[in-house]
């Protein structure tokens, strides 16, 4: 799951942007739960969670949250440019 690009980003301390796709349409209330990731509903009953993820440890934490809600994980990967994003919260 570790692309070259991502290693590069981690080396430069830039949080890598990820997208996590799960099955089912999520209510907006889960945005806080998923630490400010943007929630986009997709055709066919999927939800895309997109946003900056500090590092691998933070990514695994997000995945564990999805697991603990019994969510079905469809895909995880670096976000494509141009994806919707959560507003930057400084």
């Amino acid at each position, binding site marked *: 799951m570790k692309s070259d690009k991502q290693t590069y980003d981690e080396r430069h301390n830039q949080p890598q942007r990820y997208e996590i796709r*799960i*099955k*089912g*349409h*999520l*209510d907006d*209330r*889960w945005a*806080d*739960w998923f630490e400010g990731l943007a929630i986009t*509903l997709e055709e*066919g*009953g999927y*939800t895309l969670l997109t946003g900056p993820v500090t590092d691998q440890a933070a990514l695994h934490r997000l995945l564990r949250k999805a*697991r*603990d*809600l*019994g*969510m079905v994980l469809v895909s995880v990967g670096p976000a494509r440019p141009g994806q919707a994003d959560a507003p930057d919260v400084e």
Partner: protein
Amino acid sequence: MPTAILATKLYVPPPRANLVLRPRLIERLNGGLSSGCKLTLISAPAGFGKTTLVSEWVAGCGRPVAWLSLDEGDNDLACFLTYLVAALQTIAANIGAGVLRTLQSPQPPAPVSVLPILLNEITTLPEDSVLVFDDYHVIDAKPVENALAFLLEHLPPQMHLVIATREDPDLPLARLRARSQMTELRATDLRFTRAEAAEFLNRMMGLNLGDADIAALEARTEGWIAGLQLAALSMQGRSDTAGFIRSFTGSHHFILDYLVEEVLQRQPEHVRNFLLQTAILDRLSGPLCDAVTAQDGSREMLETLERGNLFLIPLDDQRQWYRYHHLFAEVLQAHLLEAQPDRVSTLHRRASEWYEQSRLPPDAIRHALAAEDFERAAGLIELAWSAMALSYQSSTWLGWVKALPDGLIRIRPVLSLGYAWALLDGGELEASEARLHDAECWLDTPTDKMVVVDKEQFRSLPASIATARAFRSLALGNVPSAVEYAQQALELTPEDDQATHIQATSLLVLALYASGDMEAAERSLADFHTNLRKTGDILTLIGTTFLLADIRVALGRLHEAESSYQHSIRLATGLGEPMPLGTADLYRGLGELYLERGDLEAAAQHLQTSQTVGEQTTLTDWPHRLCVSQARLKEAQGDLDGALALLDEAERVHIRGPLPEVRPVPALKARVWLKQGRLAEAQRWAREQGLSADADIRYTREFEHITLARVLIAAGRSDREAGSLDEATRLLGRLLQAAETGGRMGSAIQILLLQALACQAQNDLSNALPPLERALALAEPEGSVRIFVDEGEAMRLLIEEQSRDRGHPLSAYADKLLAAFTQPVAAPRTPIIHHDSDMIEPLSERELEVLKLLRTELSGPEIAQQLIVSLHTLRTHTNNIFKKLGVNNRRAAVRRAEELALF
């Protein structure tokens, strides 16, 4: 102070009254149990009915069940092991008592080292039983995962392990599958089938749904049980179930979200509020919920929720404690965050206050941190330190303190000190110094900014800081400054602070011991013992006796060593059962003293007693020491191969403790090799250890250097080259000086004897006799024999030479030594067995056959296969063998059988 055990974590959930029976799954689980599988793994996401299924299964499996519901706190290995023992004690009251005491002793060993002891005790359980770990996915700490892997690897056949988890555990699953050692149920197996869904919806929940509706619900939820339960709740009492099913099955909503929303909307407002506000709690009780919601009547509310199937699970038979189903709680918390974001910290603070009043500091701290009320948390964490430090849970404590803002810690000297100690325990030596410095600053310039909650600890702060620095210096190998700090700590310790006093003294003794200043070490420890007798702290006295005796042996004061052993044995036996920790070491040490005096029979008897006592309750580094002592006995009996085998065993069971290693096993092996004439191997040992005749002389390496001198003398004898003998002479001269400086007469005698042998090897008799004479004079009052006899024939010839002068005051002693040389040295074939009767019942042919296989690496099931018997029959055989041999585990049986020459 023992950790408070939460009984709710050990509660075996009874099978629910209205339950979809799942015979197809129960049969598979039972099949695994009866075929002798060691593990059942139930691995599926949340809401698939794992806990329900396991509780239904174990209720009917006919075996006693130990159940442990894990939580985040169990990522602390000591905590995990404490709960593991507590869970096992629900099926065997006395199991693991020694292990618990060991984990909670002032200087606990590495927790993982108690597992073998626990496993041995499991082998003594009279009937087959089941051990369940529920919610194993919360574990992500490597030490705990390793402990589980070790447990499974060595699980005795009478124990079956069940793991329920949302995430596959870190175990060799492929291998377990390949060897059919595991029954496995996964999400696919657990999903409700159409028939099960129908039974649940219509029979259990009283809905009267048609086949099409059931099919639609089953398809939409994909048999996910939590989804079907929520759907059923949403439909109960609804007139328009068809409409509900249409909207639900037609929506793409995340099922959990959709359905919890439905369920919540159907509740009256006061119920909905109660659900949201109490969702922050891991466990719920009436009084706790009253405190959190600031209302009365929670107990009745909880009973109502349970009756209404609102995902509330009882945690005991008295209906005192409950928890929400994890999934339900997660969603409720998300709703709470959305609806009342500013209430959350208030709710946590109320929970924290309630837990504090109920004397449950860990929960009080967790909720204070969750409330982000760091002031409050810091105070609670400070107060929790002394208890947690004693129960070996500093890693949990460290996790809490690291969650605090740094500025808050730095104005709290007692908290900073606890932080420093916790870092030291975790081996973070550098980080700890900064924290000690923070604590110290307040001593020099106290201002009103300083915050102290634990006044008692603050009184001892100067002494504790010095003690921590002594510990740190010792860990860094800086012995002189360790001595200095420990002395400082003793001067600073308040009169009545026994705990700090014990800690500081132990460190001082260890530091003096490591520096080789045995006279000073002996003085401090002897004073300490006088003080312990005064304060009546018999347990610490017994636990530290073998160290005092060891030091006295090093000083060449065998009589004093013996009397301290005898005195402590009297104290220990006076206390009755169970023997205090460290008793086994008293018999072992006394056995070694008898060995030194040449009384092999008494030595063997005492080592045997040590083994019997030690198998009941023991310090974890004792097995290593016992193996070394037994090896020395074998060596004295002339069984050199047996000695080497025991030394290998000693290496295998070795656990690093706080004591410096003064008799490293590789050096002991090199000594035996020299006796066997295996010079090349001994030389290789010296090379590998990087030893040389001109290296720095440090006490901690003295034994190795003396052994190196032996290697050099042996080389000189064999190649007639003066070079290595000169080296030996040079090294021995320096060693002698160091030993005399530290008052270590025991070492000095050894060195003098080697000087004599080195001269003898050079045919220089006139220079060989004076050191021998000195050695005889030093050893005679204490009656040492082995130290001379160990050097073999060359020494005998020298002593003969020396005793030509019949008028010599030492000639009677020399005669005694010469007699000891000519004693038969064959190992006695009849070991002494401490038993109710001295007659042991002979083993049958079949039992002997089993015994031979026990000696191999084969597992129980593999042995059963080889003998073509069932596992049950094999167990009957092994139990009979153990009984006849008076042991309680496989390894001990093999060793006892070797002693009895049964192979």
